């Protein structure tokens, strides 16, 4: 079957794919981080890497990796396996769901301060 091409910015009605259809995962091109008025501050020393924040994040902005050596976290324990990394601020909308759901309060929300260039 046919492929849908990415929309080139400013495309005319004759150039656009019909019905507004786009290639999958096009939301990656849309940096929702610009919506943010609060920013999550993550404290790795308080984190148990339970993955609750990862699954609750509505924009999938919390990346993970597999780390067999382990990282130090809550109560100075070493956590191995799937590890939560720093929030991707390109996409984090600052909604605060991660901070609300975190069982060990490893995430706190602070006012975002945008640098005006």
């Amino acid at each position: 079957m046919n492929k849908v091409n990415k929309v080139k910015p400013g495309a005319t009605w004759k150039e656009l794919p019909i019905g507004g259809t786009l290639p999958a995962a096009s939301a990656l091109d849309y940096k929702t981080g610009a919506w943010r008025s609060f920013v999550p501050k993550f404290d790795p020393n308080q984190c148990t890497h339970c993955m609750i924040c990862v699954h609750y994040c509505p924009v999938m902005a919390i990346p993970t990796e597999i780390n067999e050596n382990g990282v130090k976290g809550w109560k100075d324990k070493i956590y191995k396996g799937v590890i939560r990394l720093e929030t991707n601020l390109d996409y984090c909308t600052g909604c605060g769901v991660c901070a609300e759901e975190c069982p060990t309060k490893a995430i706190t929300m602070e006012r975002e301060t945008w640098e005006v260039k």
Partner: protein
Amino acid sequence: MNKISIKSKRVPLTGAEAVAEAMRQVRPDVVAAYPITPQTPIVEIFSKFAADGLVDTEVVTPESEHSAISIVTAASAAGARAMSASASQGLALMVEVLPATSGLRLPVVMAIANRALSAPINIHCDHSDMMAVRDLGWIEIFSENAQEAYENMFLAVKLSEHPDVLLPSMVGLDGFIISHGVEVVEIYDDEIMYNFVGSRKPQLSLFDFENPITIGPLQLTDYYFETKRQEQEAMKNALKIYLEVGKELSKITGKDYPYFEKYYLDDAEVAIVVMSSTAGTTKDVVDELRKEGKKVGLLKPKLFRPFPYDEIKEALKHTKAIGVLDRAYSFGANAPLYTDIRNALYDLPQRIPIQSYVFGLGGRDIFKHQIKDVFVELLSGKISKEEKCIGLRE
């Protein structure tokens, strides 16, 4: 009539049965519908075909018309040939989804057994249901009788699925008058009719896992207008493709599929424009008045959206007076068919007197003598800007 030797049988059927036969022959992958008078027998009969194994269709019976249209829209996005049927308040409940089906360019086809809108609650025929949704991007075809309803279903499927069109279609048949009235209907051979439409070949599909797509993303001030402009272009294409598809169907049936039917129109001094079953009654009146030497004629629109403005203008330009009979109000404005016919005539150098009539609301009968009165009125030149009513107790 049927000049070509194609296998067919002539059987007594209601309009609903004829439409269900057409649905069986086009073999939809998914049918979802909710019962509503007078549409109910269409899907009831079709469901029986599916239960009996005559057709390999997933029949879904959801809890409302809103769900039914959502299901067929989603199924169509997944690449299925998807169909439904409804009427009146059922179609009204679908309204939220109808412009999504057309906006997403999904070739869903529905039969609508035209019925009055509530309130007051009424189960009988008028065109207020399909007229209410005429601006939502669906192709609309109206049928005079069961035979036309049967054939229009094939036209609709092939037209909707054409790569230059990709818009959904509604085929209207007058509730009870056509949906429940029995006529002799010529049903063509299963294989021939299936081959006419063929299997659906979606250009894009949610089930094409090699080429994953996003359907229905947000478009704001930046792209929405362009996408809607494409839809308007698709409607223009539909006008052209309708005739092409009709020519192909002619090879099977030996009949013509113009935008509208002309009945003694070419030399007519006065003409009535009316759609659906009442056009049949009008033909009888034309026959009688022609015997008396009166030059009267009929124009029966079949394709209502897209509307063939230029062709209708050409067909009516020689007349001295026109009466347009609408089976619906457009509250606070001129009646819908009258509006479009009057609009079509604007490009003529001369101004033809044109009279608006509303008739048959809520299934109110219209009789030959009333149509004859319209012709007499048109011949006498009594044309006013007033919207007149036929069969109303004044």
